[in-house]
């Protein structure tokens, strides 16, 4: 082998080594960068998850507030004699329940009742009118109809057994269950 050939071979070896060295140096940096990025990403994800969780928590808490407010308003709505129109008070109560129902998937049962005056079968129809009045108001305000069942007991199952307006007014009602 001549000297030139030797040097040539040597230089190419050195070059190769240098090249190798250069290459291997680049690789490490990239890995580091990727790891760094992943960490940032993970942290962001963790932050996002935490934010989502706290948002969800806030939503749950808000819903709980709505549901507590609804239950505080009572589940019995009273009606005037011979009327199936919601009174202002009943409307405020039902509004609170609508707000709660919009945030959950609960199904409700509306039980219509009348006082003892008149005939039992006609009163079944009047009780149904009352339950349907509450149902229609809920549906008009966004509660899906399939989540509401309305049923009438007429003058059966009174709350107050006696006669006279003080008893009758307690029995003219729709109960939400």
């Amino acid at each position: 082998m001549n000297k030139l050939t030797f040097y040539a071979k040597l230089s190419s070896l050195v070059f190769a080594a240098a090249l190798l060295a250069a290459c291997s140096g680049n690789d490490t940096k990239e890995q580091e960068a990727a790891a760094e990025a992943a960490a940032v990403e993970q942290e962001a994800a963790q932050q996002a998850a935490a934010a989502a969780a706290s948002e969800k928590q806030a939503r749950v808490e808000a819903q709980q507030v709505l549901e507590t407010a609804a239950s505080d308003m009572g589940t019995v709505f009273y009606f005037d004699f011979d009327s199936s129109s919601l009174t202002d008070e009943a409307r405020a109560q039902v509004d609170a329940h609508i707000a709660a129902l919009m945030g959950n998937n609960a199904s409700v049962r509306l039980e219509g009742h009348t006082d003892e005056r008149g005939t039992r079968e006609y009163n079944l129809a009047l009780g149904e009118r009352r339950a349907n009045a509450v149902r229609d108001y809920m549906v008009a305000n966004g509660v899906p109809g399939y989540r509401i069942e309305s049923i009438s007991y007429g003058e059966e199952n009174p709350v107050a057994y006696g006669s006279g307006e003080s008893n009758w007014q307690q029995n003219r009602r729709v109960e939400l269950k």
Partner: protein
Amino acid sequence: MILVKGMLACVLILLGTEVQAELQIEINQGVENPTPVAIVPFSWQGVGSAPDDVAQIIDSDLARSGQFAPVSRRDMLSFPNRESEMYFRDWRAISAEYVLIGRVSVGSQARIDFQLFDTNRQVAVDQGTITGPEGELRMLAHRVSDAVYETLTGISGAFATRILYVSVTRNPSGKDFYRLTLADSDGRRPIVLLESRDPILSPAWSPDGQEVAYVSFETSRPAIYRQNLRTGQREQLTNFQGLNNSPAWSPDGNSMALVLSKDGNPDIYLLNLKSRALTRLTRHFAIDTEPTWMPDGKSLLFTSDRGGRPQIYRYDLRTQKIKRVTFEGLFNARARVAQDGRNVALVHQREGRYHIAVFDLVTDRLTVLTETSLDESPSIAPNGSIVLYATKRGEDSILGAVAVDGGVRFSLPSREGSVQEPAWSPYVTP
């Protein structure tokens, strides 16, 4: 099936046992000069002592009618059981216008022989023999009452009939307790057909008196059921969304009028009991309810507030035309038609009070019969003479009865709790 068998067993046990009546009877008003009649204790021929005092049953029936004043046994001077033992002077002396005597014997069947005498004319005006199963001795006695009543008034008696009613035991801390009960027309021999923690209402008879229909909320929704009184067999007839109420058997027994609100609001439907086909009869956004049949089966009366307030309307099945029937007052509801097709018992509101009234379909005249203020559920006896209804006494519901001519009244309060929704049976061929 377990429930059905249980009920049947219950029915059988009770049929063989003398049960104290749940209902008491208080006679509030009779006719002005009731006819004095003597019901002499009947003789008894059978094993042991007589299970029932037949003469006492007849005595109570005639007293309850308000048209007769039975003579006390303490005042009787003799106790004849046969015509040969009759001394008319004994009865004229105590001013009895009529005397009933008789004999009860029990062999393979129970048998009652009776004779009715007119003490002024000193002749027998009626006599007869009634036979039947020994366990039905009370019902045989009621059939003697029917015969005596018809002879003396010219109107068929309705003592040998039965009534359905709903009794309710209040439970302020939970659900009330409902029982559908079948009893003799004097309230005796009550048999519980159904017990429930949920409401039972609208009991109705099949025209042959063998079956009953009613509404029960036992599934937490109203549904109409039919139940055979002999076999205890029970069947749910409807289960629609919304109202399922007011079952009313057609006079031919083939179909049933009822109220459904499945199509949006209460309307009258006709259910063919054989084909199960359902036909909608009324179609109105108002309340249509409480259907009841005219005896000829050609038309139905029902309650509707299509005119703004509840009134009685008539639906003609052939022409499908609807005509308003009542115009007097702001509230006339829940009609029941007498077998003569003329007198209609209904609930009429006057000055905020709800009374039982009779509306005459021929003269259009409405007559208020009751003075109490929360009267409902009128049911007419099959002889057309008496309206049985429910009213309120204190916190409880009681049954009341009033003659269609207003002359006679009696009450049937429960010994405990409330009784409501009476339904008087048709005549049943023995």
